[in-house]
């Protein structure tokens, strides 16, 4: 690949990303009222998206092989417990991450 071709390749990645981010804003201009159906979607989508993103983060965890997803499962349980107890994002996130790293090193270090 020549240098120009590299620039085009990177440029197309930039363009593709920008388009997916900007398209909704281009279609539904901020000057006009957003259609009711789209506002409904904007309201109903976030919790569905966050659920989808959690699945996305865990997509490569295998239940049948390796650690059977146990370190992930246990750490997520801890995150939920910590968060229900304190409702402090940083405590829940760091607690869960440290737990996961310790589990990998001390318990599941095969």
């Amino acid at each position, binding site marked *: 690949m020549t240098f120009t071709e*590299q620039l085009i390749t990177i440029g197309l990645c930039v363009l593709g990303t920008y388009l997916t981010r900007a*398209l909704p*804003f281009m279609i539904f201009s901020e000057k006009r009222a957003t259609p009711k159906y789209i506002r409904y979607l*904007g309201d*109903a989508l976030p*919790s569905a998206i966050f659920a*989808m993103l959690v699945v996305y983060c865990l997509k490569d965890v295998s239940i049948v092989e390796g650690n059977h997803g146990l370190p992930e499962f246990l750490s997520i349980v801890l995150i939920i417990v910590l968060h229900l107890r304190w409702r402090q994002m940083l405590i*829940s996130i760091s607690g869960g991450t440290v737990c996961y790293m310790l589990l*990998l090193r001390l318990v599941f270090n095969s």
Partner: protein
Amino acid sequence: MSDRKKILSALRAAFPFTVPIMTGFCFLGLAYGIYMNVLGFGVLYPTLMAALIFGGSLEFVAATMLLAPFAPIQTFAVAVMIQARHLFYGLAMLEKYKGLGLKRQYLIFGLCDETFAINCSTRVPSGIDRGWFYFWVTLLNQSYWVTSAMLGGLLGEVLTFNTEGLGFVMTAMFVVIWLEQFLTEGRHVTSLIGFAASMACLIAFGSDSFLIPSMVLILIVLTAFRLRIER
């Protein structure tokens, strides 16, 4: 309140929300820079790609595309498919990003997963300017990503460190944001639809290609049951 004060107080309010992202991006960005370095790209590549594409997963894929024969149409198609989930973020942020003037253009450009997660789920503290709050979250996140990609590219293989499992910080963050959403929302059915649809598609389509089918399925279910969900 003077402009300067307004901007600085928004920065102070925004920073704590971005700390988990800083941790995760330092790790992932370094990994990306090192990866590019190992593939033989100079430091400018990961730095500029991090700044301009600003979308983690595609940047890794783009690296392999740079090493393959030139295929512009395929490159563009892959980019759009990998990034398609951003279409949902835009729909969800339409109202929140209204009336923010020039800042809005940058907010749209920088709407990555993590920035979306914070700006969508956080109630901007009272007395803080909404536009500047969103702006700082976006800019801080982007600066973490670009800086760590650059460092990774500079230091390359010099770095040897045992950070196995640190990437879990991102999973932890999405779990917490989802849980927070779940605890505050009036109805839980949309969360459950998100889980059920993406799990079903993950099983049916496999981990490499389940995102787009999941999005379509979520849209169909949300549309079909709109009257029931809205009630």
